[in-house]
């Protein structure tokens, strides 16, 4: 043990959790600014052609993904790595399904509410930014899965899993707001 034992420093998980919360707060500002811009530009107007049923299906997919990501953490903490990997795969599958449906929706939307209309601009900006964040979340989950497959995710590194899942769930929660302000209002 050197003199650099750093007994006064908190454990890494503590730093990581704090830093992640800051980053999530910052990301919340990103979406908040876009939501405010939506109301500035459009008031409460929306395109009638927007498919609320599809929006509900998308919401259901992400709610299920939030639950399965939670189950992944619970399984890892109970020591069941097989179940954890299964739940991670399920979460990723739900996420990929979500992105595929978004592509379908955009394909229809380009004719119903094109990007050259104010609603269309806002719709593609907000759903596009959200999908980009979901894609990042997918990479994080895939990385966690891969690390566990290679045995690099030991029990003292489970903070990585908790952090990744926290970010994933944040992106899921953002979708609820996106759904309300783009599909419902």
């Amino acid at each position: 043990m050197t003199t650099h034992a750093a007994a006064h420093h908190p454990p890494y998980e503590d730093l990581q959790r704090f830093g992640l919360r800051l980053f999530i707060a910052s990301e919340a500002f990103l979406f908040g600014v876009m939501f405010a811009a939506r109301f500035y530009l459009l008031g409460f107007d929306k395109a009638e052609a927007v498919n609320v049923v599809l929006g509900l299906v998308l919401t259901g997919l992400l709610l299920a993904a939030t639950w399965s990501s939670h189950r992944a953490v619970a399984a890892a903490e109970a020591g069941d790595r097989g179940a954890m990997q299964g739940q991670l795969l399920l979460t990723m599958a739900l996420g990929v399904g979500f992105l595929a449906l978004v592509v379908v929706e955009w394909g229809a939307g380009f004719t119903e509410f094109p990007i050259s209309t104010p609603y269309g601009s806002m719709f593609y900006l907000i759903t596009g930014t959200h999908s980009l964040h979901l894609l990042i979340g997918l990479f994080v989950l895939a990385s966690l899965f891969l690390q566990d497959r290679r045995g690099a995710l030991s029990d003292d590194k489970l903070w990585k899993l908790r952090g990744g899942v926290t970010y994933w769930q944040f992106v899921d929660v953002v979708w609820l707001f996106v759904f309300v302000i783009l599909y419902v209002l």
Partner: protein
Amino acid sequence: MATTAPRLERQIGASGLPYAIRGLIWGLIGFALGAVVTMLVRSLAGSPAWRTDQMVVIGFLFSVPAFVLGVGAWETWGRGWVGLETLEYDPPGWRQYFGFNLDHKVIGIQYLVTFIAVFILAGAVAMLMRTELMDPGRTVLGPAGFTRFMSLHGFLMVLVAVTAVPGAFGNYVMPIMVGAEDMAFPRLNALSFWLWPPAVLLLLSSPFVGGWDSGWTGYPPLASVNNLGQIFYALAFVVGGLSSIVASVNFLTTIVKMRTKGLTWNRLPIFVWSILLTGALSLFFTQSVAVAVTMVTLDRIFGAAFFDPLLGGAPVLYQHIFWFYSHPAVYVMVLPSLGVMLEILPVFSRKPLFAYKWAVGGIIGISVLSGVVWAHHMFTVSALSDANAGFMLSTEAISVPTGLVFLSAIGTIWRGKLWMKVPMLFALAMVFNFLIGGITGVFLSDIPADFQLQDTYWVVAHFHYTIVGAGIFGLFAGIYYWFPKITGRMFDERLAKVHFWMMFVGFNVTFLPMFWLGLNGMNRRIADYQPDLAPVNLFVSLAGFFLGTSFLVFLWNFVVSWRNGPPAGSNPWGARTLEWVTTSPPPKLNFDGEPEVLDDPYDFAPDAPPHAVLRTGGER
């Protein structure tokens, strides 16, 4: 705690191609890949394959991660993402600066040198602008060339002002001041630096595509229809903004979570406070400017309707979103420098920092109010809006916390025993300059006066007095104050004083007459002016060239002293904060022992206990 884990055995970077060069190659490959993907998608959608602006945007978004991985993030970080063992980049000598090095001291020097270079380049562009303005009519650049170089100068300097002090000293000095071995997230820290080279290189290449002419603010509708350079500006803003956010997470976590034993909030050096609040501002508000420039880019490359009134868009929306970031950003430019000033004044006055808690309260108050004043940049846009009165009041209210910072500075030097070394000269000059900058700002916050002064040289003079007079003077105060710590060598005091007096006099004779020019109706951002303003403009240009030459003196001294200066010792200024307790330059993990804070950082009484001591293993 990651930094206490056993150091990894496998090192990279000690020989062969420098990683920075590999990063450039990977970045170019990434750019080509992004451009080809764009062409493929366009072909599949049945459009003509080639579309330059879309290919530039997608290509750049591919090239940035490729560049960062190429400079060594792949080995030091990315391998871990796929479950492989990560390697360490820690070569000796000059190579340590040219790759993904995780040491906060290396990163601080990378930031410092990079942004001094950007500062000198952007200053050279200002010399061109003043050449054009030496007499009325066309001189060297012409109207179009002038607005493009004005935009480049403005934006590069904004990046310097936002980044240089927190990047250099927030990284190098702050972790040592709080007694930490490194930042909380060393990899994120390296990432925050290595996002800058692609952004800066992109901006420096923008003149080759015709630049852009909408200034650093990039307002649509002009920004929706001008040259391709406008997209370079937007991309650089987004990538630089991401760097700021990542750096802020690191600053805040380090300050909140990694302070050493005994370093309570009451004992926190004032510079650390200023970095804490700067970090909070960047963390929240930077996102908004990314939204603004992204929306302009979508208008341009995908035909979106955000800011095109013919399609139902609203150009004023851009200004709201832009200034929602960019007003807090001016405090990001100034607060760290005010922190440097308040750090230096007690040391060279040999007195405690006057009204420490009120100064901290002032910094917090400025930060909080900065979020609710943005529309004062838009008084003439929404001249009939009732909200203007509220923004006028909130803007004028900022002078109260700013006044607290001022009173702390004045109270500190009041009846002190002033030691007129170069860092102190710069700190005192800041008090003088920022007073002029602050008072002239009051006129701009006043709506009727603003209607007259908007878009004149009064505004140019005002913000140069705040951003240069405080922000950049603070950068140089910090450079001279911490130069002995960072390099282990002392600079040439005589040359440094020559630099100071040239810069201080040159700055004031350049920018003070601009207030007069503004009152007499000279428009900013335009290459021409009415003939009766010619004599004063000639004077301002000559004064500007004089100011420009002062930095050559600085550069000479900086380079020569770094190589050959006499050894400085660990504490040449007799200061008390933690960075002066360790050696110059500090060892790899900053301290040969465990730092423990015992007392106030600014208590210069002869019998006061030291601010901090190092406990070695035996004493425990």
